[in-house]
């Protein structure tokens, strides 16, 4: 096919049905306005039409999976990994299709379905060519209302999960997050490893997995469902199909949001004798997304450890050459738990730990300059849209995150204004109030023989072996 010498062809990509960008002095961003589909109680369904490319997608989140009965109390033993196995098994057969037929029918159409679990929800996502929208929604119905939970598939999922843990333990970078959250927050819903550990997974039975999903005499998921359908879709047809699929079905609307526990202090040293790199994190309690100081928190963190020229990366990578990356951040899924994160060759462990700590201390003690604040603001605003709102699935996930964490949508729509309003005085107050003070909580992974004397001054040390089952003390 021949084309003209200069300007080429065709339809530019059509703009999204509702503008993401509100006109205004600072080119602020705004969440697209979804179409709300009123289904039975307990199901919250949104549509985000976007004809830009002929793809459709969905994301659904179910809460209340594998939670201990409310009456059991906060000390009831969790079974870390059950929700994750539920998520994995949901893709392994639903409705008329066993696991093989499910994946064949999805993949033959060029589609994808993937799933995961977080502390609050089991998530299933999918993406298909636009012409397969009806098929995709049928799959959504099957997965939610008619999952098969075949015994063999649950066993397979469990085996893969255990293998995954063992393989991950060979690479400290893959596992330090799990050691960190369990050490900092304990073995409850927010601290325990979502994907389980060697022991917890071995103890889970297929009956446990099935029980985590249904309730006696009631098919379908146990908790509230959030569903977003995105892309090049026909709103009328999708709405009609969703009504057909869900009919009069009702979900249990009650679910308890896990409370954020206090943060344990002290040092966890996880021994990996053959490690050539030392990985470490330190931090403590922070503030969550819906806190009034959220914008100031983000600005401050950007300067400390939220981008390439952050204080931490500048000190540890650019100036000292001790690491390939150093950063920091607040974990919004866990109440804003704050951590500084980096790694270094074992030989330079002491130097890197000292420098990271010194950089953090200086930041807390001295704060930042107006120039740094302005730079951080420009950075957060300049990077926001491509990271969060360029595609309909991105916007859909953001809407679901806001709902899951009970954060109002205005938090996004007013984000740029809130960033603009933060002064240097505000930032300094927020740093002193919300960036954790010492004694800090630490997790360090590497050869204990080398690291013991180095970590001893940091706090009371608890030592475990990386090879031991689990991710440290609960």
């Amino acid at each position, binding site marked *: *096919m021949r*084309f003209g010498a200069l*300007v*080429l*062809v*065709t*339809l*530019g*990509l059509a703009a999204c049905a509702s503008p*993401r*960008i509100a006109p205004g002095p600072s*080119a602020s*961003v705004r969440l697209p306005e979804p179409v709300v589909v009123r289904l039975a109680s307990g199901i919250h369904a949104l549509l985000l039409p976007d004809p*830009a*490319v*002929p*793809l459709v997608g969905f994301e659904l989140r179910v809460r209340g999976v594998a939670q201990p009965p409310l009456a059991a109390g906060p000390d009831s033993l969790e079974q870390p990994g059950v929700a994750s196995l539920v998520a994995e098994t949901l893709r392994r057969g639903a409705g008329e299709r066993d696991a093989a037929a499910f*994946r*064949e029918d*999805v*993949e*033959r*159409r*060029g*589609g*994808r379905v993937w799933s995961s679990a977080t502390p609050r929800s089991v998530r299933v996502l999918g*993406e298909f*060519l636009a*012409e397969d929208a009806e098929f995709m929604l049928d799959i959504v119905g099957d997965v939610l209302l008619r999952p098969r939970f075949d015994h063999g598939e649950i066993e*397979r999922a469990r*085996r*893969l999960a255990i293998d*995954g843990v*063992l*393989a991950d*333990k*060979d690479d400290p970078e893959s596992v330090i997050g799990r050691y960190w959250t369990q050490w900092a927050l304990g073995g409850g819903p927010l601290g325990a490893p979502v994907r389980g550990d060697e022991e917890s997974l071995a103890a889970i039975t297929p009956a446990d997995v099935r029980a985590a999903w249904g309730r006696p005499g009631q098919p379908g998921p146990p908790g509230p469902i959030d569903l977003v359908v995105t892309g090049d879709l026909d709103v009328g047809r999708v709405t009609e199909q969703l009504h057909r699929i869900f009919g009069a079905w009702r979900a249990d609307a009650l679910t308890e949001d896990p409370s954020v526990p206090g943060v344990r202090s002290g040092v966890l040293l996880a021994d990996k004798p053959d490690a050539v*790199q030392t990985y470490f994190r330190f931090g403590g309690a922070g503030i969550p997304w819906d806190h009034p100081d959220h914008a100031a928190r983000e600005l401050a963190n950007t300067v400390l450890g939220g*981008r*390439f*020229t952050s204080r931490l990366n500048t000190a540890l*990578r*650019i*100036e000292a*050459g001790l690491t*390939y*990356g150093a950063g920091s951040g607040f974990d919004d899924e866990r109440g804003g738990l704050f951590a500084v994160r980096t790694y270094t*060759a074992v030989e330079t462990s002491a130097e890197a730990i000292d420098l990271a700590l010194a950089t953090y201390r200086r930041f807390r003690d001295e704060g930042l300059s107006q*120039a740094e604040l*302005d730079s951080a603001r*420009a*950075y957060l*605003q*300049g*990077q926001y*849209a*491509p990271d969060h*709102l*360029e*595609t309909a699935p991105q916007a859909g996930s953001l809407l679901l995150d806001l709902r899951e964490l009970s954060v109002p949508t205005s938090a996004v729509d007013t984000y740029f204004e809130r960033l603009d309003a933060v002064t240097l005085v505000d930032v300094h107050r927020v740093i002193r109030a919300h960036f954790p003070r010492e004694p800090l909580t630490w997790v360090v992974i590497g050869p204990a023989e080398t690291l013991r004397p180095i970590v001893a001054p940091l706090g009371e040390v608890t030592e475990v072996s990386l090879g031991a089952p689990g991710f440290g003390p609960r």
Partner: protein
Amino acid sequence: MSRAPLRTLVAVSLVLVAVASPVWAAPSPSEPGAPPEIALPEVVERTLDNGLCVLIVPDHDIPNVSLHVFWRVGSRNETTGTTGLAHFFEHMMFTGGARYGAQFDPTMEAAGGSNNAYTSRDVTVYQDWFPSSALPLILDMETDRMSGMVFDPDVVASERGVVTGEWRLYREDPGERLLELLWATAYVAHPYRWDVLGWKDDIDHWTQGDLEDFFRRHYAPEHAVLVLAGDVEPEAALALVEKRMGRIPRGPGRREPHTREPPQEGERRVVLHDPNAALPQVMLAWHVPETGHADTPVLEVVEQILAGGESSRLHMRLVEGDALCLEVSAGLQGPQFDPSLFTVQAALREGGDTATVERVVGEELARLVSDGPTADELTKARNVLRAGMLRRLRTNDGRAELLGETEVFHGGWRRLPARLAALRAVTAADVQRVLAAYVTAKNRTVATLVVGESEE
């Protein structure tokens, strides 16, 4: 390697789709049930007098721009003794323009931008993501570092330390070491045989003269393609580019790599013993043509049939069925200018036997040669490749990457429709022919990772 903790993009598979015409079209009457075609984005192109090729891909959905500069320089342009230089340059380019120097990153971030880069055996690609209001500044910064580098010895020493650290990081990953060994065994003559990171001794011995010479010869505008995708007005953007980058003079010319890999005339096998590795791995490679060759689309379809998704042949046999492996992948190692490799890579479960995995892979390949793929498998490959293409066309970054790659590796971005048509046209007989031609024992290299020390 890229600057944030990301892996080298060695295999950037071009996911392309058949398109017969550049507009929305219904299924053609001669192919009932054929999936509808896709639409290409608007592209404005200009080649400057100094040879710099510029592509503008406007889209106003978000007030942002993605800029990619593709340099036709990679580790294949190196020589023995100075390996790793192309990758080192990727690092140096962020530190040494005459005007911005070490302020490059702080200046970009203060304007709301971020950046990254990657080096492959064939190209080095620089990427900037920024709000459209920062376009003049970003172009000024890119011009600065394209125009001339300042090789401050302290900075060189520091960056040498960083790339050494990166080298060490990759050495710790048994899979990366195995892949390096696979290439080094499959190629005996061509520069593809060494890794993008280079050999450690070469990293330690680069001189100031090596750097200056490399920059002068390879970082010249006639070797580059600049793509701007996003919230820009094409003519205004072109004027800005012309005004700044148009002044950069052409380079002194360079010799293209001339050492061709001789045909492999017998199977090669290599073993890596790693006492620290927990799990065995095996990698197989076959020599295949360069990306621009007519058989490449067939191999992209083969990739999907063999290991694309969980319903693929190798996944069903090795991961699900016999449960021998944790994961398996297959595919082209491209895009590449010179004859490349098609590989199958398997990570085994604990205690797994690599000989068994090799046998299973061999069986599946033989079956595919003799019986050919099913109609469903061909349909799946087409749909998967089309969906992947659409995903890339959905973002500024994806558009910049896809169009830039096509310009560089396929003789021009305008050839996108032709490549798409070729993918769509792949038949079962094509698959059988291509496999029979390339996937032979003689043409095969096998690298095995054995856990623990050698017995001898």
